[in-house]
């Protein structure tokens, strides 16, 4: 049997070991995702990449591709659920786009546009979250954190610094800085770190670089996110290792 499965009836070739998500991205199929990054091991937590694999919902980033699978991706049913996931993420944090430097480059916002999220639908939490302005070159605005753990993975696996972590459980789960003081300035975090560039939303931002690219000319202003499929880059053995 050849290494092919179908997504929404389209034949998708894959290499053994690839996930459904990797094969889909390689074939240029748009898959909404926030916690997945081609250079890191899949996490399966944001659930936006959920597809129906042989009739059962599964996160495509953690589902190994197998020959003959029948996968549903871009359907009304699945996109309705993805829209609801975005709405839940929006009300859980303080996502005030008009004042956010990430606006136009933000994946959460871009997916909201692509999926047609017109309202938060749910009751806003308006949580009280801090801003860490202590580091000379970077700032942290925890109001926007969606707990994708990309900065945690990047700092631990690539930078070998372990600057970030999650603390608390359930609704109280939140991103913290691994320092006695809890301040970013008291870590060895650097502007050149991988963790400084992976945030899909506007939590980890570089100081004194605001609005270098004007609103209206940013990544997802130019083309919607569903027309900018990140082609899959193979994971290097170093990042595949368990940490």
């Amino acid at each position, binding site marked *: 049997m050849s290494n092919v499965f179908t997504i929404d009836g389209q034949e998708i070739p894959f290499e053994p070991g690839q996930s459904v998500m990797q094969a889909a991205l390689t074939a240029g199929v748009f898959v909404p995702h926030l916690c997945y990054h081609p250079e890191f091991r899949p996490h399966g937590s944001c659930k936006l990449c959920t597809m129906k694999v042989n009739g059962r919902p599964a996160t495509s980033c953690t589902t190994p591709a197998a020959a003959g699978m029948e996968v549903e991706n871009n359907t009304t049913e699945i996109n309705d659920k993805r829209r609801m996931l975005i709405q839940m993420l929006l009300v859980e944090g303080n*996502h*005030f786009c*008009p004042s956010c430097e990430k*606006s136009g480059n933000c994946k959460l916002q871009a997916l909201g546009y692509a999926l*047609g999220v*017109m309202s*938060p639908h749910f*009751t806003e939490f*308006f949580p009280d979250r801090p801003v860490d302005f202590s580091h000379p070159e970077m700032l942290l605005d925890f109001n926007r954190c969606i707990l994708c753990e990309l900065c945690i993975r990047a700092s631990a696996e690539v930078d070998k610094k372990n600057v970030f972590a999650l603390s608390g459980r359930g609704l109280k789960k939140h991103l913290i800085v691994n320092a006695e003081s809890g301040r970013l300035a008291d870590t060895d975090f650097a502007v050149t770190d991988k963790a400084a560039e992976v945030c899909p939303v506007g939590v980890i931002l570089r100081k004194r670089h605001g609005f270098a690219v004007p609103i209206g000319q940013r990544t997802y202003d130019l*083309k919607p996110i569903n027309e900018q499929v990140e082609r899959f880059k193979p994971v290097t053995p170093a990042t595949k290792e368990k940490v």
Partner: protein
Amino acid sequence: MNAPNRKLRVATTSLAGCFGCHMSFLDIDERILKLVELVEFDRSPITDIKHCGPCDLGLIEGGVCNAENVHVLREFRANCKILVALGACAVNGGLPAQRNHLDLRDILEEVYETEGGLARGSKIPNDPELPLPLDKVHPIHEVVKIDYYLPGCPPPADAIWKFLTDLIAGRTPVMGHGLLHYD
């Protein structure tokens, strides 16, 4: 666009907003001449009518930050067949809601009593004519049922035009790339 067989009545208001959405609405420029062939305005800053009568469409700018906002919003809901949250503040609270993690009394005291540059003896205003502020600022869908949302700070004039012409023509408004903005 096929014109409906009578003019639709439209009411608009700004609650906890800055009138930026109304300014963006006026940014449809000369298209407003086409619009007034299809609609007539009830309560709105454009007409200065003080209370809303039965309407087909109500456009609400701004969230709910005080008691008067709640009354106005309920009056709109009671009179408008279709109620629309227009702009970021109506949709999710927007800028005024950025006070929600602060204590209301602390804010009022800082602004009216303790901040530098105030006249000696300044007090928090307490006139019966002033609507009482709410503890938190709320998006309008947390108070009444909302039928449509058009985000943006403000929504671009082209988005408002597309939204209104879609709705008047009996279509579900669809905002494509470039028209749907949260900022």
